[in-house]
C-alpha cells in the first residue's frame, strides 16, 4: 500500500516535471498572442478628454511597451519568475492580487457546479446503463443532449428572468453574496466555507442562494459528458466478466452495482471530471458575465477586450497551472483508486 503511494507520488512528480514545458509554452504563446492583438492598450486607456500623444506615451512607458518585443518577453519572464504578473489597467491593481481575490469566487462556483453535475450525472448515467435501451435510457440521453445544446449565456439569462425577475425566488444576480450581508472573515476565500467557519449560517444561506443559479447554469452544460461517460463506463463494467462473477456468486444486487460495477466505472468518470473542471474554469466567462460573478474569467474577458495584456497573461497562466494541478490530482486519485496504474 505504501509502495503504491510512493509510486503514485513518483508518477505525480514526473508528470509535474513533464508539464513544466507546457506551462512555459503557454506563457510565451500568450505573451506573443497578446502582442499580436491590434489594439494598443495605451491608446485605449488614454481616454481622458484631452488625451494626447504625451499621455499615450506615458502609459506605454509605464507598461514597458516602448521596448522591443523580445526585451519585453525577457522582462516578462523575469517578472513571472519573481511572482510579479504586472498590473491591470482596468482595475488598477496588481494582477496577482486581483487573481488571488477573484480566484476563490471562480473556484467556488466551478466546484459547486461540478458537484451538482456529478450528483446529477452519475445517477442518471447509472440509471441509463442499468436499463440500457429502455425508455429511461433514451430519456437520459435526451436530457443530456438538451443540456449541452443551450448556450450558457442563454440559459443563464433565462434562469435569471424566470427565477429572479418573474418568480422572485432567487436573490438579485449581483455577485457572490447579498450586498447587505456582511462578508465573513477571510479564511479560505470560499464564502461557503468561511461562513461555516465563522458559524454565520444566515450568511451561509445568503451565499448559497447566490450560488445556486450560476452553478446550475454551468452544471447544465457539463451533465451531458459526465452522464455519457458514466453510462458507457457503467455498461462496460456491468458487462464485464467480474460482474458476471459477482452475480454467479450470489452477491447482493446493491453490492454488485455499487462495489463492483460503479466503483470500477467511476475511474473514467474521474478522468473526465478533471478535464471538465479545467474546461469549466476557463469557459465560465459567459456565466460569470451574466451573473456579475466576480471571478477570474470575466476579469480576463474585460481585460482582453481592452487589450489589457497583464491580466490576460496572468489569467491564462493561472488557468494552465490549474489545469496541470487538476491533472496531477486526478492522476494521484487515479493511482490511489486503481492499483493497476502504479505498476505501469
Amino acid at each position, binding site marked *: 500500500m505504501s509502495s503504491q503511494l510512493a509510486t503514485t507520488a513518483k508518477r505525480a512528480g514526473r508528470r509535474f516535471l513533464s508539464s513544466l514545458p507546457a506551462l512555459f509554452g503557454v506563457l510565451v504563446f500568450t505573451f506573443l498572442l497578446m502582442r499580436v492583438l491590434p489594439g494598443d492598450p495605451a491608446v485605449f486607456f488614454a481616454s481622458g478628454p484631452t488625451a494626447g500623444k504625451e499621455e499615450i506615451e506615458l502609459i506605454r512607458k509605464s507598461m514597458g511597451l516602448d521596448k522591443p518585443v523580445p526585451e519585453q518577453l525577457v522582462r516578462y519572464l523575469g517578472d513571472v519568475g519573481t511572482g510579479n504578473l504586472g498590473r491591470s489597467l482596468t482595475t488598477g491593481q496588481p494582477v496577482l492580487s486581483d487573481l488571488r481575490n477573484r480566484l476563490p469566487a471562480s473556484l467556488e462556483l466551478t466546484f459547486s457546479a461540478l458537484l451538482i453535475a456529478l450528483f446529477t450525472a452519475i445517477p442518471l448515467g447509472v440509471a441509463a446503463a442499468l436499463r440500457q435501451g429502455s425508455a429511461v435510457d433514451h430519456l437520459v440521453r435526451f436530457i443530456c443532449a438538451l443540456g449541452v445544446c443551450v448556450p450558457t449565456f442563454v440559459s443563464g439569462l433565462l434562469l435569471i428572468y424566470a427565477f429572479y425577475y418573474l418568480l422572485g425566488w432567487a436573490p438579485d444576480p449581483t455577485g457572490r453574496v447579498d450586498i447587505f450581508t456582511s462578508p465573513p472573515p477571510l479564511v479560505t476565500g470560499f464564502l461557503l466555507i468561511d461562513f461555516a467557519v465563522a458559524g454565520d449560517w444566515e450568511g451561509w444561506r445568503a451565499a448559497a442562494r447566490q450560488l445556486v443559479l450560476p452553478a446550475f447554469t454551468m452544471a447544465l452544460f457539463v451533465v451531458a459528458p459526465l452522464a455519457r461517460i458514466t453510462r458507457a463506463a457503467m455498461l462496460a463494467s456491468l458487462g464485464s466478466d*467480474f460482474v*458476471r*462473477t459477482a452475480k454467479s*456468486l*450470489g452477491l*447482493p444486487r446493491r453490492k454488485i452495482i455499487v462495489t463492483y460495477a460503479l466503483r470500477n466505472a467511476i475511474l473514467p468518470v474521474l478522468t473526465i471530471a478533471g478535464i471538465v473542471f479545467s474546461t469549466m474554469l476557463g469557459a465560465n466567462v459567459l456565466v460569470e458575465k451574466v451573473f456579475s460573478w466576480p471571478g477570474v474569467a470575466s476579469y480576463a474577458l474585460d481585460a482582453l477586450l481592452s487589450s489589457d495584456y497583464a491580466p490576460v497573461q496572468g489569467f491564462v497562466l493561472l488557468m494552465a497551472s490549474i489545469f496541470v494541478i487538476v491533472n496531477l490530482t486526478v492522476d494521484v486519485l487515479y493511482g490511489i483508486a*486503481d492499483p493497476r496504474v502504479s505498476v505501469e
Partner: protein
Amino acid sequence: MNAFASPGETPLLAIDDLHVTFSTRRGLVEAVCGVSLQVAAGETLGIVGESGSGKSVTAFAVTRLLDASGRIAAGKVRFKGQDITSASSKQLRSLHGAAISMIFQNPRGALNPIRTVALQIADAVGAHERISASEGRARALDLLKAVLIRDPEKRLDAYPHELSGGMCQRIMIAMAIASRPALLIADEPTTGLDVTTQKTVMDLLARITAERGMAMILITHDLGLAARYCDRVAVMQHGKVVEEAEPRSLFRAPRHDYTKRLVAASPTATSKIADLAPSSLREGASDEAIQEGGANPSGLLRSARNDGEVKPAPGTPLLLEVQSLVKRYDGGVVAVNDVSFAIRQGESLGLVGESGSGKSTISRLVCRLIDASEGEILFDGQPIGQQAARDFHKSPLRKDIQIVFQDPTDSLNPRFNAFDCIAHPLRRLLAMKDGAALSERVRECAARAGLPAELLERFPHQLSGGQKARVGIARAIACRPRLLVLDEPTAALDVSVQAVILQLLDSLRREDGMALLFVSHDLNVVRMMCDRTVVLQNGAIVEQGESLALFRAPQAPYTRQLLDAVLHLDGPGQRDAVVAGS
C-alpha cells in the same frame, strides 16, 4: 463412482428439454434447442463442442446468468428438484454461489481488478452468511490454502493484476467453493492458460471436487481435457446434445458422425495430417469447416492422402539462417536471447513454446517487420538483417517472405473485401495493375486456399473464422513466397476447422516447395506439420532437432514437462489416478 444417476433417484441437476433464444437483428436465434442432461451429486460431466455449439449458453441458462438479450424459451432446469427457470431473483441469489457456482475462462478478467483478493473472497463468503471483516479475512486465508496457493498470507492483499493467470484461476476457484456449493460449473477454465498451468489447475479442480463431494460440469472445446477429467461426456453441436457417453467409449468408438469428425480432427500424439479430416467423414457433414471446403482445390484431398515424406534432401541449400538473434525492448526486457536456427529450402521448421517464450517476436524478426537488436538473418545467403525494417518494403526479397497471422479476424483490414486483401500484395509487390490478369491471379490464389470465388466480394465481418483464415493464407501465398511464416495460424480456430486448414497448409507446402516456419504452442500440431522443431523458453532455445526424435525422446526437462502436459483422448480413470496420487 457411478457414472449414471440411477433412475428414481433425484439427480442433483436435471436439465429437461432446454431451449434458449437470443434476440438479434435477424430476429430470434435459438442457441440451445432441446438440451436434456442430468448431473448426479459428486459426478463430473463434460460438455464438449466447438464454438457456437451452445455449450456455454447452456451453462449460463442453468445459472440464469444469460445476457439481457437471451431468454429461456422452454424447458426446465431442476436443482435438487427445485425449478431454477422459474426461481425468483431472491431465490436465485441464494442459489448462486451457495448451491451452484461457476468459474470462467479468462480468470484475470473474472476478478474485480481494483479489489484485493481477500476482500473478493470475503465478498463471496459474505454473500451467504453474515461475517465480520476479520472473519472474512480468516476465511479467505483458509480458502487460499485450500486452493494450494503459495504464500497465501502474502496473496491476501494482492490485486488480480499482480498474480499470474493460473493463480487468478485458483482464486476464482476459492471464491466459487467459498459457500460450499454442491455443483461447480467450469466454463473453459483453462483456455488461454499455458499447457503446464492448465494441468495444475485442472488437477486442483479434480481434487477439490473429489474432496468435497461436489459435482462439476466441465465445459470445454478440448476433447483431451474432457477425456481426462470427466466421468461422463456430452457432445454438443448446433444447440443439441448429439451424443452422451462415458469418455473412454465415446472417444474410442464415437457413434455420431459429428463426434467422429471431432475426434478425428483433434490432434493426438500419433495422428497424421491426413487423419485429421478423412474424406470418409465429409459426406453429409454440415459443419462450417467442411462446407468451406466447397471449392476444394483438386490437390487438397489427394495430397492429404499422400503422406509421404517431403523432407528435403540432405544437400538442399539453406534458405534462412538465423544467427545469434537478440531482441531487446526499451526497459531492458529481452524477448529473444541469442537464438540461432536454419531452414532449408522447402523445409518446415516448428517453433514451440509457451506464452512469453519469444516465438512471435522471432516470427516478426524473420519477416523483417521489426528490427533485431543483435544478430544476423541470412536469406538465401544474403544478409537481410541489416536493412532497416522500415525500408524492407522496398527489398526485392519482400515478396519471398510472407506471413500468416494468428488471429484471422485481426489480420484482415476491416475495410478491404476478400478480393482486395488478396490482391493487395500482388498490386504492391508484383506491381500488377487492375485487370483480368490480377483478378485471375486472385481467383487462383483463393481457389488454392480453398476459398470459393463467390466469397471474394465479402468483407471480413461477413466471413467465418475459417474463411478469414483462408483469405489470410491466400494473401500470403499470392506472391509465391519461398518462406512462409505461420504464427499460430490455427490458434483461434475450432479443431475441425483447424484440421482442414492444417491440411491445406501442408498441401500448399508440398505443391510449391515453400519452406515453413511454423510457430505454435500445440506440440501435437507441430509434430505433424514440421520436419524439425525448436523448443523455446523465455526467449532462448532449449532444444532443437528432428521432430519425431525430439518428441519421442525429449532431452531437455522443459520439453519433457511440455510433453507431459499434453492431454490424450484415451485415458479414463486418469481422474481417479490424480486424486489417488495426491
